[in-house]
């Protein structure tokens, strides 16, 4: 008896240990998403931190990062870190090799040392031209292959700028046509855009200034003097930008009103074309937050990255979380967080993608990069969304079903099954899954098609039997009349 009990205990202990080793996901944060009604729904972690490294892990003599501000990955997989405090750009790769340190350039064959003064933002074009927003030198430097100086963009000489205007470029971006977009400190009119020759084109992506009714009432009450003293309503400042595969520019800006998107997707004309089909979940990160105390306040999107297949991820500097949306504005997953645990950030400033992995740049202290890799769950979502975006939705059913198996509360997966069934033509079953996933838009489509199917299936029979009955009725009448006539003649 005793030995049986012992064995049972041992067995259960073994079970417990086995279970912890297989089922315990070692993430220091809780993944979540929002459902149709804007309720928070916990979900598995889509990305997990696999390592975190600083410059001291790469090279002993390199020193530490000092307040890094920006990070970019070029199309060869090199990671460019703008080391703001040390006036240099450090280029590394993901295998932790130092590629080079950029702190100067060749100008007409002559090496210019310590050429940068507080560089802030960087961009690398497809043909490996490097654009550096050289903040306190009031210019954007363009470097070609071999660090050869090509040209620089300086303060535009145009009418309309204030007399004390100082050109302090922060972030820089180049589109396929060679148009350069620069976010400049204390310029609220929009993103400054320059043509390929460096001439000022105008402001890009101006934010509409919305007068709230209360503001208008106040202005009505105020005297002339008060109105004159009050500064004009200024739009918000841009935080960061990135360009997607179609040449559309993603930007983030600080929002004061909690029902406005913090992300914009600007078409080449500078109009916001960001799509969000769910009015209950706004594209500004967390939908609810504490007003005071630890981790209070709304999300602040400090950086955004355009991902392939219409997805984009935005980094919140307030809580260190990364929010990933698809091309329809669905919040796919949230991961990351602030704290001192491994894989968490203290002061995240920049987000980049390397293949399917995500890199976060943490500016706190010595500065480090946190490398996130997708879990099976995250990879499934990425694949299924990519298939939908590329038009292979009908083949994505298996991925969505696997996601439902992993996380039954994930409404997008239920809707995903429904949508793949819908595009495969199974309207009746699609309705069930779309209802479970609360995809009202596609539920309506599936319902409409199913209704048509039902009608096409039954209406011919109904009409045929109606015709037959009508024919019988007529012939009966005719018969009666003939018979009746005959009878009356008989009488």
């Amino acid at each position: 008896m005793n030995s049986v009990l012992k064995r049972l205990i041992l067995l259960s202990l073994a079970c417990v240990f086995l279970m912890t080793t297989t089922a315990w996901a070692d993430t220091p944060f809780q993944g979540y998403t929002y459902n149709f009604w804007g309720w928070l729904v916990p979900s598995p972690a889509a990305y997990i931190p696999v390592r975190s490294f600083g410059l001291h892990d790469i090279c002993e003599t390199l020193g530490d990062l000092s307040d890094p501000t920006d990070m970019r990955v070029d199309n060869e997989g090199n990671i460019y870190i703008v080391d703001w405090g040390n006036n240099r750009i450090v280029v590394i790769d993901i295998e932790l090799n130092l590629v080079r340190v950029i702190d100067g350039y060749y100008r007409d064959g002559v090496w210019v040392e310590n050429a940068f003064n507080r560089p802030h933002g960087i961009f690398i074009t497809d043909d490996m031209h490097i654009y550096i927003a050289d903040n306190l030198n009031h210019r954007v430097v363009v470097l070609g292959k071999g660090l050869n100086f090509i040209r620089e963009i300086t303060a535009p000489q145009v009418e309309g700028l204030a007399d004390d205007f100082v050109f302090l470029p922060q972030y820089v971006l180049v589109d396929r046509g060679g148009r350069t977009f620069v976010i400049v400190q204390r310029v609220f009119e929009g993103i400054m855009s320059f043509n390929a020759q460096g001439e000022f084109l105008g402001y890009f992506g101006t934010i509409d200034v919305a007068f709230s009714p209360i503001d208008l009432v106040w202005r009505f009450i105020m005297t002339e003097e008060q109105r004159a003293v009050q500064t004009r309503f200024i739009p918000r400042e841009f935080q960061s930008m990135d360009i997607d595969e179609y040449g559309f520019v993603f930007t983030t800006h600080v929002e004061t009103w909690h029902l406005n998107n913090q992300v914009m997707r600007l078409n080449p004309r500078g109009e916001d074309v960001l799509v969000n089909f769910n009015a209950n979940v706004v594209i500004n990160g967390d939908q609810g937050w504490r007003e005071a105390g630890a981790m209070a306040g709304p999300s602040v999107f400090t950086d955004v990255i355009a991902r392939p297949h219409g997805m984009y991820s935005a980094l919140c500097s307030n809580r260190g979380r990364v929010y990933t949306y698809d091309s329809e504005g669905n919040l796919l997953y949230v991961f990351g967080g602030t704290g001192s645990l491994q894989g968490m950030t203290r002061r995240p400033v920049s987000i980049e993608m390397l293949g399917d992995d995500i890199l976060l740049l943490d500016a706190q202290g010595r500065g480090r990069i946190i490398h996130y890799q997708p879990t099976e769950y995250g990879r499934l979502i990425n694949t299924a969304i990519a298939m939908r975006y590329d038009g292979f939705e009908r083949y994505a059913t298996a991925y969505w079903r696997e996601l439902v198996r992993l996380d039954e509360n994930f409404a997008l997966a239920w809707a995903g099954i429904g949508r793949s069934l819908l595009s495969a033509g199974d309207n009746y079953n699609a309705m069930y899954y779309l209802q479970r996933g609360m995809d009202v838009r596609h539920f309506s489509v599936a319902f409409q098609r199913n209704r048509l199917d039902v009608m096409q299936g039954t209406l011919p029979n109904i009409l045929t039997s109606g015709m037959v009955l009508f024919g019988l009725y007529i012939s009966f009448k005719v018969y009666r009349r003939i018979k009746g006539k005959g009878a009356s003649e008989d009488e």
Partner: protein
Amino acid sequence: MSKVFGFYSLPLRIMTRPFEGFYAMKYQREGTLKIAVINLLLVLISYAINDQYASLVVNPQNPLTLNSLNNAVMIVGALILFCVSNWSVTSLTDGEGRLKDIFMAMCYAMTPLVLTIVPATILSNFLSADEAGFYFMILAVGMMYFIFLVFVGLVTVHNYGAGKAVLTIFLTFFALLVIVFLLTLLLSLWQQLWVFAYSIYTELMFR
């Protein structure tokens, strides 16, 4: 019609001939409180059915927050509040209606709601998002006819002209605000009194 629908004939008569119907309700003593309450219950049931069975396309409700009892309390509460404030205004402005008459007029006026909500709910299950307008149109027609009947009912019950009726309805909403304000005040005062008494009680207990 009265033969077919029996006891429910007056609500239908009010719908088709409102002035004559309300006149009969009050002055010929045809209206009964029983039928009025039944009409109110029918509306509550209709709304519960609507919440539960209207199609996903027009009614994307969260099943976890759906509470028919809560809705019923809200509707009845609003109705009683409106009746009381209307009564308190009209008794000062020569209205002839008693509280019972006002309540009955309101309940009898609800027949269009009874007749539209459930059919609209059934219809919604055959509509896609593009056609949802029909559903909302039916509901809106019912609601508008209800408001019209309330107006006619109040005019008839109080023996007012149209202008005076409009004025008293405006005053009714004002009285409604005052009542809500006083209720809130009363609640907070009562709570403070309660806390005071309770703290004295705890003091005495721990002495």
